[in-house]
């Protein structure tokens, strides 16, 4: 299904675990340095209201004066677990894209804020880079370096799967519980 900007609370609350979405709109990248900076009270250089943040350290190069994205796969999200929930609440961030899923704290905030976790396909650097149709800006690059900067990516039909929703559902918790039970049965 399509998920198009603006990413309003209503649209996000309608999403359920297992939904396969294609996102069209603006994404902000952010990984460890950005999350720590915002959590420590740093001022966001972009408007995060109703935004989607992408855990990604992209490879971006300048060709003929234009930014071109060479690789844009997701990075492991769990490192942002201490920061993510409070930041969602403070800035009304409606979605986080990454890989590997996040923990119970973030899941709680997803419920209270009205936000979701979207799992991108780990390693699919080329497909994902191709879905970034324009780079509209970059912030904090001097301070944190290019992969850790906030990049504004205009994406079209960016593929992801909802694995944590705003109703307390977590595909990660579910698959872990089911596979643990299956193994216990197998080993009798």
């Amino acid at each position: 299904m399509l998920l198009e900007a603006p990413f309003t609370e209503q649209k996000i609350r309608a999403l359920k675990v297992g939904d396969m979405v294609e996102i069209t709109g603006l994404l902000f990248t952010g990984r460890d340095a950005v999350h720590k900076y915002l959590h420590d009270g740093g001022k966001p250089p972009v408007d995060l209201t109703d935004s989607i943040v992408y855990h990604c350290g992209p490879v971006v190069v300048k060709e003929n004066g234009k930014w071109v994205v060479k690789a844009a796969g997701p990075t492991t999200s769990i490192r942002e677990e201490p920061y993510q929930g409070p930041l969602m609440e403070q800035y009304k961030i409606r979605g986080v894209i990454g890989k590997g899923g996040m923990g119970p704290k973030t899941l709680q905030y997803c419920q209270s804020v009205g936000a979701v976790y979207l799992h991108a396909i780990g390693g699919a650097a080329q497909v994902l880079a191709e879905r970034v149709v324009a780079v509209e800006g970059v912030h904090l690059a001097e301070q944190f370096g290019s992969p850790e900067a906030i990049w504004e990516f205009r994406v079209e039909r960016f593929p992801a799967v909802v694995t944590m929703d705003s109703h307390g559902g977590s595909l990660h918790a579910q698959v872990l519980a089911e596979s643990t039970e299956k193994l216990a049965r197998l080993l009798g």
Partner: protein
Amino acid sequence: MDAKVLQNHLLELIRRTSAELPTDVVRAVQAGLRREKQGSSARYALQVIDDNIIMAKDKSQPLCQDTGTIICYADLPAWCSEGKFRKAYEWAVVEATRRGYLRQNSVDSITGKNSGDNLGPGSPQYHFHQTPKKALTVRMMLKGGGCENVGIQYSLPDTRLAAGRDLEGVRKCLLDAVLQAQGKGCGPGILGVCIGGDRGAGYVAAKEEFFRELDDTNEDPRLAKLEKRIMKEGNGLGIGPMGFGGETTLLGVKITHRNRLPASYFVSVAYMCWAFRRNGCVLTEGGKLSRWLYDS
């Protein structure tokens, strides 16, 4: 062989390894894709992965932005010294990094500084052997970080798993490793396993198993049986691609063994993600490439 010629062969080897998956791996991904239910997120994930494989090859760009640890095995004939080989390979690594076939991926563990050219202590990682043969054989692998992080080593007996020092105990370890990894190593994955050895040799041997083709059969019938069983039981856990749930959790299980001390019994498990990048080539003294070791 002229140094320049050797350099260029090695550069092409790195490019190919980074951008093109071997066909045995592509076949395994596509078999998984066919197996997963229409409309499932497992199928969706494998479809994106399959598209990515095709696109990376077409564009001659890295399959995944994490181009991993560079692991190189060289069987050196009399005409190629270790020094000559290192010099040529290091040139190729630096050039491949400059051209974007490899990401700047080598960080000083004390200062946190990225060397910028993938050279540094232990990078690239070499395994040299002398060979009485005439030709030079080079094999390499790019081993990603996400999947490396879910590798695990067991010391048997293990009380938590109720695993003793026998193949039944090994089976329990391997299924536990698959369970613990969930989708975090960018599954569907491949297990490289070594039973025995010391801790260091165990992991090295476990990773060497990744040079086997996915559809081969272990020469040791006991291990062949165990590999088959873990494939079936591991996939039965339902973890699926990326941990989304589904039938395709493993693309392969490859097991070897080393002698151990009476006092220890290690089971070393290396996990490889779907972006299973390995290749190799055979080079003649005259500077010709006689063949690639894997189709891609």
